[in-house]
């Protein structure tokens, strides 16, 4: 599938694909520098994306290592149907889902042993809150979204990827993407009504 739009418009999509194919070939020949280059080129972006998906925890070293370890194992089988970056985004989404799922399980277990019921966060608007608190609330709202809404929101508004790339990463149709984005917006609008109205 031809890459029609990359985040970096300086590099044409076909050049990127050729470059990726060369890197994969190099890696398959046993040239370790190919993987180094892939990590160097994508690690920052992937780390930021993972950070956003996981609700801005700050420290994403473990998950980044998991992502690139999966890439290292799967790179030999990579068929270059899409760019390496798109492929890495897909891996990131899957790993973040697994990570969050594990975290949820751990949290549930912790709460069960503590015998406490989590209190719902107070999302009432506070006119006097500072900017920091405002953005914290925004991030919490994004974090509170279910993965199927949070992922399109992050890809669309934070990573600013085009729709055709998002549908490829998420493996869904364009219509489904639009539906998810609409629902996500509605939820955010509901949660952050005062902020948006302002």
């Amino acid at each position, binding site marked *: 599938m031809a890459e029609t739009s990359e985040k970096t418009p300086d590099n044409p999509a076909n050049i990127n694909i050729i470059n990726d194919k060369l890197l994969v070939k190099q890696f398959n020949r046993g040239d370790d520098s190919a*993987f180094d280059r892939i990590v160097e080129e994508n690690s920052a972006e992937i780390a930021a994306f993972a950070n956003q998906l996981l609700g801005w925890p*700050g420290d994403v070293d473990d998950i980044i290592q998991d992502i690139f370890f999966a890439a*290292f194992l799967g790179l030999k089988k990579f068929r270059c149907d899409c760019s390496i970056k798109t492929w890495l985004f897909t891996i990131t989404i899957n790993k973040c889902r697994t990570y969050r799922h594990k975290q949820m399980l751990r949290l549930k277990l912790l709460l069960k042993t503590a015998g406490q019921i989590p209190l719902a966060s107070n999302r009432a608007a506070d006119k006097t809150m500072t900017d920091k608190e405002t953005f914290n609330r*925004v991030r919490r709202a994004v974090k509170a979204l279910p993965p199927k809404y949070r992922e399109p929101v992050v890809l669309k508004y934070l990573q600013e990827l085009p729709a055709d790339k998002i549908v490829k990463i998420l493996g869904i149709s364009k219509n489904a993407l639009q539906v998810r984005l609409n629902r996500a*917006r509605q939820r955010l609008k509901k949660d*952050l009504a005062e902020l*948006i109205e302002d």
Partner: protein
Amino acid sequence: MTEEKIKNLLQKADKAAPAQTPVCSSLTAAVRRRAGRRRFVNIAAPVATAAALLIIFGAWRLAARTTQTKQHQNKIASLQAEIKELHARTDAALKLIQEVLENQRQQRRLDELQTQLAAIPDPLEEIRKQVDKTAFILVYQADRMYRELNQKDSAIRAYNRVMELFPQTQSAKVAEQRLSQIQNNPPNIKELKI
């Protein structure tokens, strides 16, 4: 419009988020180490499993063989006992057969001897026959002397001699009849019969 607001708000919130820790510089090295460990586990795990299975199988075989050996030994012992018993039975049967054959042989020998014994003539009977024969010949000669040669005295002496020497025989009785016939009335010798 709302979409734009949401987008702006999200981007501002993202920028205002706590600084993300920079990606570890040794990320590739860490990934390679992890891949190496995985490769090692991928190789070592099946080898270890195979070795463990081999050891278990070997131990099982050894145990089975020991049990089998014991079973074989017991079986051999029982078979040997059976063979011994069969030997004893065979010996007894052979002994019995030999005894029966010996008896049959002795019986045959006895039958043969009895047949042979039966075939041997009685000597007393022979002597008796010879005595009868001698007495008859003497009577016959006396008859001839009296009838053909007309020697009456010699004939009487011969008859008397027969009666004296062979008194128990049929010829002695005949001689006695001849003598009484000669003394009473001379008989027609030709009518006399022995």
